[in-house]
């Protein structure tokens, strides 16, 4: 009847590793049963209390691997969430950069348009003033007449420069915002990359833990086989 005692314990330990392996799916894709839904009692505790040093060692290593997997998965989930947040922030900053650059382009362009129109209108006003000056000079050749065209030119010139300067000033402000957003987007991209590497590391940790489970099970199998062989030999000898 020894096999009936031995079998369920080893079988249950395999079952645990199998359920663990299945239950290790990430939050995003997990459809496998969680650890709380085991159909069988926890085999690790049974092994730990078996009094068999080989079984106890295997149970301890399994427990450690289980913890490693659990930690690895929680790190992976946290890093995945952080990566998603960084990617979302990167997209938001990219959008902000695009909007600010657009506003800078509009401010600069419309500033130039306004300046150009003011220049053109100013030039025609100067022409009118100049004609007026000439008419005055011709009407009274011996009297020194004031030259209004120059003052008109200065006023309209100032308007033109002021308009263009205002446009450039506003454009510079928005361009500065766009540059800041660009820097921040790059920063977030780097952060996302760092989190992605951490996710990969955590995944490796989980994989290592699974390998450890496999090795432990192999060891335990060899151990129980050797033990059974020894018992059988002793039985035959007797």
């Amino acid at each position, binding site marked *: 009847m020894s*096999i009936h005692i031995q*079998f369920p314990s*080893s*079988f249950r330990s*395999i*079952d645990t*590793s*199998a*359920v663990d*392996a*299945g239950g*290790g*799916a990430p939050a*995003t*894709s997990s*459809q496998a*049963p969680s650890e709380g839904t085991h*159909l069988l009692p926890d085999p690790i505790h049974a092994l730990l209390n078996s009094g068999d040093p080989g079984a106890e060692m295997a149970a301890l290593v399994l427990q450690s691997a289980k913890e490693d997997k659990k930690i690895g998965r929680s790190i992976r989930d946290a890093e995945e969430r952080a990566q998603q947040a960084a*990617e979302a922030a*990167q*997209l938001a900053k*990219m*959008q902000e*950069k*695009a909007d600010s*650059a*657009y506003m800078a*382009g*509009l401010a*600069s*362009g*419309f500033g130039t*348009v306004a*300046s*150009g*129109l003011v*220049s*053109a*209108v*100013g*030039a*025609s006003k*100067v*022409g009118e003033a*100049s004609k007026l000056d*000439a008419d005055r000079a011709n009407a009274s*050749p011996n009297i020194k007449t004031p*030259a209004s*065209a*120059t*003052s008109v*030119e*200065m006023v309209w010139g*100032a308007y033109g*420069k002021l308009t263009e300067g205002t446009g*450039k000033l506003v454009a*510079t402000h928005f361009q500065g915002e766009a540059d800041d957003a660009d820097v921040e987007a790059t920063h977030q991209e780097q952060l996302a990359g760092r989190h992605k590497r951490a996710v990969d590391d955590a995944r490796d940790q989980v994989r290592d833990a699974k390998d450890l489970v496999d090795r432990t099970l192999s060891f335990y*199998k060899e151990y129980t086989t050797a033990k*059974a062989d020894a018992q059988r030999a002793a*039985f035959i000898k007797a």
Partner: protein
Amino acid sequence: MSMCVPTSAVSTVLPGDVPCNVAGNGLVTGNGSLLPAPVECSTDGLEALYQLFAESNREDSKGAKANVEARSAEKQNRMREREAALERARKAQEDQKGFFDSMGIGSLVGIVAANPALVLADVSMHMARLTPDFLRDFENENKDSIELATKLYCAASNASVLADGIVNPESLRAAIALGGLLVQESEVFGKDASDWAGAGMVVAGSIDGRSAASVIVADKDSAVADQIRDVEDKTREWNKWIAVAGMAIAAAAAIVGSLGTATLPVVAIGVALSAGGFAVTETKCLDALLGEGASMWIGTGMMISGAIISGAGSASAAAQVTDKVAQGTREAARTLQVAGGVVDGLSKTRQGLDTVADAATRHEVDNAHVEAKSLLFQMQRLQRMVEEIIDTVRDLKDGHRRMSQAVNDAVEMQCQTQLMAAGMRA
């Protein structure tokens, strides 16, 4: 004890056991399970466990498969959306409209009403891609109707002149314009030739130049329109130098206006400062020395200073001019200055509109790229999910393989024990 065991799971079948007809080798069976399908037979403990795990495995595999399929379909959708976004970016870059194509219905109304502000506002709105959707849709859907309306308006204005009598020069011109419209519509000389001939006749003959201009602007699918676009495209790179030429004329005129006065050097210094400022801004030569953006600020400062100095110098020179000859020279210079100023102003206006159009195109391209990037992230996330599910299924497969092995070992051990017990009894 008669037990049902999978033939692949055990190496030794006891004489009393019934071999089950199962598909083994750990391969996925038709129902998606990694283990062979359980059979309805005895209530043996091992068999019950085997059935339990096989059922669980089948459910897991089925769920995983459905999950992978759903995620893959979602990923395909994202991929298509991303391709569409990138296509939009490419199209936005290609479809950047120039001044001519940015003249919509508002511009036509502005031309007919002789309102340049309305034309400029409409062009600016189109170039900045700020046109409301309903207006853009209306313009696109009723392109032909708008074109026809301008032609009818042109025809009506010319026909009203023709009604006054046909033996005067104006009536003759109106008749030519009407003939031009007929040529355009009938395409009697072929498409391109009729476009050119018709447009020429309309422009030359129309009594109202504005209605002729509206006909030219409204027809966006003619050989004339293509030529206008071509000219607009080719002159874009020269625009800056046209503005420079205008500035140079104005500067030369300022110096000529101050000739013979004591303030000539002041005016010359002002002009030199303005020219230097322009050169610094354009070449960005100070950025390498003083940091990014330095050229723009210093150049702008130099231009403003130059304008103030040359303006003050010109004013002072004007006050010193007393004799009529000098006054005449100054007026001639002033005319040049006006012409230069107008050229410079109009070129600047066009430059500004080009900047607006570039910014709007860049914005649309950037928006499409942001969307494409977002979809790329979603695709990567879905890909990771699929990989996770596949990893999970692989783990399940390993787990079930181990279970199958354990059943195998257990049965083998049970058989050996029974054999040994039988041998001992014998």
